[in-house]
């Protein structure tokens, strides 16, 4: 198992890249809306899930089950 500094070393650039891609996606969405696109996406459940995921990521006191919690956020509700 890697030490904490090793985990950071191994994953820093990739994390930076993933955050940039997400930021660019949200920028793209905002530009599309500003350009006259439909504003209906704000109530779109998928966007709400993305925003809820960011809250999980931003929580410094979160337990190390962030990936599981985000997957649960993106899971379809149980039927019946």
């Amino acid at each position: 198992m890697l030490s904490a500094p090793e985990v950071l070393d191994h994953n820093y650039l990739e994390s930076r890249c993933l955050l940039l891609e997400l930021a660019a996606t949200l920028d793209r969405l905002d530009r599309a809306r500003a350009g006259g696109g439909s504003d209906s996406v704000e109530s779109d459940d998928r966007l709400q899930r993305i925003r809820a995921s960011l809250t999980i990521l931003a929580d410094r006191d979160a337990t190390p089950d962030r990936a599981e919690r985000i997957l649960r956020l993106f899971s379809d509700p149980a039927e019946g």
Partner: protein
Amino acid sequence: MQIIQPHYHAIARTAQDYERMAMSGVVAVCEPAFWAGFSRKYPETFIDYFRQISEFEPTRAAEFGIRHFCWVAVNPKEAENPGLSRAVIEQMPEFFKKPTVLGVGETGLHKSSPSECEIMEAQTQMAIDHDQLLLIHTPHLGDKLHGTRRVLEILERMPVNPDKVWIDHVEEHTIRMVKDRGYWLGFTLYPITKCSPKRAVDLIEKYGGERTLVNSSADWGPSDPFLLQECILEFRRRGHSLQEAIEIFYNNPARYLGQNPKFDIKPIRVEEIR
């Protein structure tokens, strides 16, 4: 679609890359002189490297129907050794006479040290004196913002023609300062550093495609020459026309590089036959 790959380190890549690039529409690549992954000790090693990219590499590319052009320079990392750098720079004008050498590049900054700045300035002056195109590398990560500002400060006190200068590896936080000054700018597509295909298309949509060159990573490190094709696909999937794609990925490099008459590939237009 026909594509020009304006920044490609062929000596670090395989013949199979050439073959696949040819199959995907690449008609020309341009190879700036760069850091080999270790710092060279002798001026002669650079000279042999310049011979490799100006004499041998065009023959390797030609096997696949690809035109190969190159640039000569001491790269920013090795500019940390000014004595070695000046010994190399003295010999660069001989290479400007070769039929596929397009200019001075890539010079620029890595850590923005005094030696790097001194050598970038010397190479910029050489490009001015010999009326050569100039390709400027900007730093990779945390140093990029400061390094790009420093590059612009150096250029602003020299009599450069912005038409001839290409400042490479710009991203969201450096594009405006480069574009506002009228230089050509480049996006370099890497798997996890510098720019991604989607972000490059975002930047084209936001700032326009004028004076813009797009190149994919292609070196000895983690890199992927076909991110350029991925970027073209992303551009087209967003609804931009074939001619608009040609303008960015073929005509723009043809226009910029064509300022040196050795680069004789001309802009093209797609027309329907009636």
